[in-house]
């Protein structure tokens, strides 16, 4: 859960009675730890061999290269190359695709204004890809201060947007419920089905569709683009795939189109996070009675604009709407 959602949830929790007994926290901790263990086993199983293969591949290549040229090179020279490369990597250059660009003075400033703009966005949204990170002492101090102010600012923005569109979110959820009720009336089915349908719709809008766009603009495979969108919107932000990382693409050659795309991707971040905030708000504060109230009022006034009607805020955090399930 992103930092913002945690913060929002904490705000609501503070206003209501304590929900989490010490026992619950303990159980959560144990479950969490077990989940991490599960993850470690899975990732180890999936990734370890592949990386070993990569490593072996390079070692072999270097080895055979050395064998081929043994008469004129000594291993000290190979080590020299390795050291030089690692030195450059320490300065954050391991994301370069090649070094001939530097040799030919074809130097693109990775910190030009559009890129810095995008960088600022990744800081305040806590994504933090890391492909670009401040290397100077002043830059790092500036980054800390910038984040200290920017993250709460973003939190407020997302919270307000979430509040503003919360009613529309509840409406959509209710509409889904209404249509599902036509199929089957059982309460459990409705709850689960609403959750599933809602989740799928959300996933398509937030990730599947933008992934199509990015696979086109960045020249990635759809799977890579899909992975990128997911890692970005959850604010994990590994940085192995970043939009705008490949400066050879035609769209990034022109300064204007570069600005346009950086702004576009920033909008994507903000819209995506906002929608998640709206969903979160709708889920946290909705409940069965409120839906019914809402619909009654709508019918009476014949008023299509739901946002006009003030929903009295009685947040019951942790309750799944329409059920008695307390998370």
């Amino acid at each position, binding site marked *: 859960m992103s*930092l913002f959602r*945690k913060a929002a*949830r*904490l705000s609501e*929790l*503070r206003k209501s009675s304590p929900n*989490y007994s010490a026992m619950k926290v303990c159980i*959560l*901790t144990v479950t969490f730890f077990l*989940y*991490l263990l599960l*993850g*470690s086993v*899975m*990732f*180890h199983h999936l*990734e370890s061999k592949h*990386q070993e293969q*990569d*490593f072996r591949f390079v070692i072999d290549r270097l080895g055979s*290269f050395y064998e081929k*040229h043994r008469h004129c*090179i000594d291993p000290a*020279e190979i080590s020299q190359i*390795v050291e030089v*490369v*690692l*030195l450059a990597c320490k300065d954050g*250059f*391991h994301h370069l695709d090649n*070094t001939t660009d530097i040799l030919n003075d074809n130097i693109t400033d990775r*910190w030009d*204004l559009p890129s*810095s*703009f995008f960088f600022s966005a990744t800081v*305040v949204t*806590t*994504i*933090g890809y*890391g492909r670009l*990170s*401040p290397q100077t*002492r002043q*830059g790092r101090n500036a*980054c800390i201060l*910038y984040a200290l102010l*920017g993250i709460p600012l973003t939190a*407020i923005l997302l*919270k307000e947007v979430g*509040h*503003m569109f919360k009613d529309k979110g509840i409406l959509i959820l209710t509409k889904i419920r209404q249509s599902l009720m036509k199929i089957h009336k059982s309460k459990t089915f409705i709850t689960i089905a609403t959750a599933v349908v809602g989740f799928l719709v959300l996933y398509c809008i937030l990730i599947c569709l933008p992934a199509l766009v990015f696979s086109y603009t960045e020249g990635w495979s759809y799977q890579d683009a899909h992975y990128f969108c997911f890692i970005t919107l*959850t*604010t*994990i*932000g590994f*940085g*192995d795939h970043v939009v705008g990382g490949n400066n050879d693409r035609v769209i990034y050659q022109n300064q204007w189109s570069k600005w346009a795309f950086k702004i576009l991707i920033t909008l994507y971040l903000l819209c995506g996070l906002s929608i998640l905030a709206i969903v979160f708000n709708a889920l946290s504060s909705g409940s069965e009675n409120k839906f019914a109230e809402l619909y009654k009022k709508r019918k009476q*006034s014949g008023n299509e604009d739901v*946002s*006009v009607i003030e929903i009295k805020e009685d947040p019951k955090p942790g309750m799944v709407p329409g059920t008695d399930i307390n998370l």
Partner: protein
Amino acid sequence: MNGKTVGIISFIFIIYLLLGAVLFHFIESPNELAKMEEAKEMRVELMANLTDMLTDDQIETIVTNLLKITAAGVNFLNMNETSPTNWDINSAFFFSGTVVTTIGFGNNAPSTQMGRNFCIIYALIGIPLCGFLLTGIGEKLGILAKKLEAMFYDRVTCGYPTLLRLTYISILLVIGAIFFITIPSIIFMHVEGWKISESWYFCFITLTTIGFGDYVIGQRSDKGYTEFYKWACYVWIIVGMSFLALIISLLSDLMTDYAGKLREEQKQRLKQLKNLTGKQLTRLGSSDKKGIKGVEAGYHGDEDRVEEEDRDGNVEETPLDAGEKF
């Protein structure tokens, strides 16, 4: 929470991003270009030293391969032949942690397609799970914070409640900074061999879940990390993140409450203005219902209010009515 508020905040936000763009550009760009020049010189020197043995293309191939491998997280010099992977169980455990906490350092990232797909599913379940844990811990911290707040208000009084709250949050922040940043930084300085500024930077970037990945704990295989150290780090991350979430929620609450207070004051002022205008208008003998409402709407920034009344037919007390009372 209306459109105008969101509009204003969005505007401030965009300005803030632009400010960041300019700031980082002017701080980092010269340094980066200088480093690129250095890299170029290194490369040229390499060519000069080895060109009679290796062709330029061969050097390029080796360099590019090494860059790729390093980008994927393989740490050449620190790896021994027997365990050339950083996906051993311990590291994979740490990686899982960075996924569910959304820190996502990225020094290690799944490179197989299956690994990535699993990562997505793993995150979908793990992130909410982590969220519950963190809010649970955060709530406990919040209770403690409330107690401290009460103690604080007992001792300090001030005419400005908002300022008082801000002061309290600042004190909390300072205490938190000592426990969650300064003390761990000193530990990292000794164990990881970083400078104090680098450790401080790492702590902050990690706890806010930004997680660039330029500094990561536990990456040196030549240093023997004790089990205690590793577990202490995990606990630190979890509790520290909860604490920071608490601070951010306190701050945003404060700002929203303050904005709400300002709005209330504005409403009061408007009411007074309305009564006044009503009185003046009765004296003049004219009433411009729509005009007054337009002014009202302008003050509130809330056009909906005007329309709502027209549609429902419930007309609020008009200035004329108010005037007639007097």
